[in-house]
């Protein structure tokens, strides 16, 4: 297949993602996968791809690439300066680009991660059913300067644009829904209250593996325990009493006590936070968390339907 993009500047961390590497925990392999299913699936739908097609994930913008062959692209995520040949462009819509065009994405003022989809999907080596990049495991593909991006197959699509009411508001997601679960009964009631009534600051030691937070110190329940499987969103409290939320690239097992889990939907919101941002936690029931997940699915389906008709 021909190369369609030449990356000039990949930004802080640019990698290939799909929906994730599922069913491989028994080998010690984590899930990985796109930081935000809504943004990822909509980006693919905008360029006419199946929703699990490999796309680029950008971190803190700063991305620049030259187009080598005509394709359609779509950028989704928080608002950011986005130009083609220095001409300003809009996110959440498909854009035809031609050979020689230069795509530029600036540093966002709010938010951290973007999805850049190309028509036909990115050609990438699949391992264990997924192309998802997890650097720690040596799987996938990190994009460096001069990396040539290949297309899986040519695909032509009509111009599409997501209705404005279906574009997420990235300014309003500092309150993260979570469920009290796992070893929460081993924490004191006072500490659980402190956790739920405090705001926490995202530290610089935060990435796709986990977000280390700083704020009210909690007493981590003592005692040796066997390592156990770690789910997406698990909030672990090591001996220093500062919570860590485990995310897409988390280690598969671990032994720190956990007081509950951020919902999968809000893990995507947390992954948009950067060092210095503040978050707080809202405890909800499992039933409500499952309802919210269904509502998120309904919203996604509305977006996919709208793009199918346009």
């Amino acid at each position, binding site marked *: 297949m021909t190369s369609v993009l030449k990356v000039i500047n990949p930004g802080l961390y640019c990698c290939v993602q799909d929906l994730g590497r599922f*069913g491989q925990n*028994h*080998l010690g392999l984590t899930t990985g996968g796109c930081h935000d299913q809504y943004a990822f699936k909509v980006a693919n739908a905008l360029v006419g791809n199946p929703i699990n097609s490999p796309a680029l994930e950008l971190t803190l913008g700063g991305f620049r690439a030259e187009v080598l062959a005509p394709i359609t692209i779509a950028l989704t995520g928080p608002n950011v300066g986005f130009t083609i040949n220095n001409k300003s462009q809009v996110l959440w819509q498909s854009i035809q680009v031609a050979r020689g065009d230069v795509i530029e994405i600036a540093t966002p003022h709010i938010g951290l991660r973007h999805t850049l989809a190309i028509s036909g999907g990115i050609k990438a080596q699949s391992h264990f059913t997924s192309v998802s990049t997890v650097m720690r495991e040596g799987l996938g593909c990190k994009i460096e300067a001069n990396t040539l991006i290949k297309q899986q197959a040519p695909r032509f699509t009509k111009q599409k644009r997501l209705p404005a009411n279906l574009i997420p508001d990235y300014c309003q997601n500092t309150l993260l829904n979570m469920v009290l679960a796992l070893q929460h009964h081993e924490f004191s009631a006072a500490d659980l209250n402190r956790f739920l009534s405090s705001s926490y600051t995202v530290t610089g030691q935060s990435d796709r593996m986990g977000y280390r937070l700083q704020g009210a110190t909690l007493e981590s329940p003592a005692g040796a325990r066997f390592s156990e499987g770690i789910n*997406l969103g698990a909030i672990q409290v090591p001996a220093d009493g500062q919570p860590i939320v485990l995310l897409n690239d988390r280690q598969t097992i671990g032994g720190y006590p956990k007081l509950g*889990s951020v919902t999968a939907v809000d893990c995507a919101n947390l992954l948009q936070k950067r060092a210095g941002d503040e978050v707080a936690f809202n405890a909800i029931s499992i039933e409500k968390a*499952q309802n919210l997940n269904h509502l998120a699915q309904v919203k996604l389906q509305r977006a996919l339907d709208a793009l199918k008709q346009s």
Partner: protein
Amino acid sequence: MSNPSYRIFDASEHAVLIYFSNTISSEQTQKLAAFSHALKASLGELIVDVTISYTSALVTYQSLSIDHFSIKQKIKSILSQLNDIAFSVKQIELPAYYHSEVGADLNAMAKAKNLTVTDIIKYHSEQIYSVFAIGFAPGFAFLGEVNPILATPRLATPRKKVAKGSIAIADRQTAVYPAASPGGWNLIGNCPISLFDAENTPPLPFNIGDSVKFIPIERNEFIRLGGYID
């Protein structure tokens, strides 16, 4: 018969954690492996992933397709039939070159325990280990339990780089580093066989619940099998 010792907890809105007991044993690890197998076979696409580790199984499920009450009911039903499920495990043998040139902590460990290197090799290689968990890194298997005579705490300061194939001890567990990585376990030897290979089917020679035995080999054999001395 249902076993009253199973404890089932919600871990999140899409995951359930099941504790089989508070202690580890090879029989229980085999039971956990049988459970994982039965769950995947019986519930198919409702199950996203099953992570077994020591005493527990984390079940990640499709929460768009089944709610947490129903998945727990189905899990309980499978647990109640678990004693009737036949599950076979295999024993695999791994060649092990025990020497200070590939095991930087071997001599110090012998000295600290007032043992000879030959004693350490004997104690480490005569045991049949169970694969209790796989994690930390792809293919990194936590094997147990090590003879208490050899139990040694992790290094105070982890090494920046441990060579691929390194055989190591931490407390009453042993492992083979499947790839070069940082690590804080005590190094006693090296296994020349590549354990984790993404291009191979299967990528790992063992599963959780299987048994592993180390077979001591000489330097010549180590080199012949592809072993590498830094």
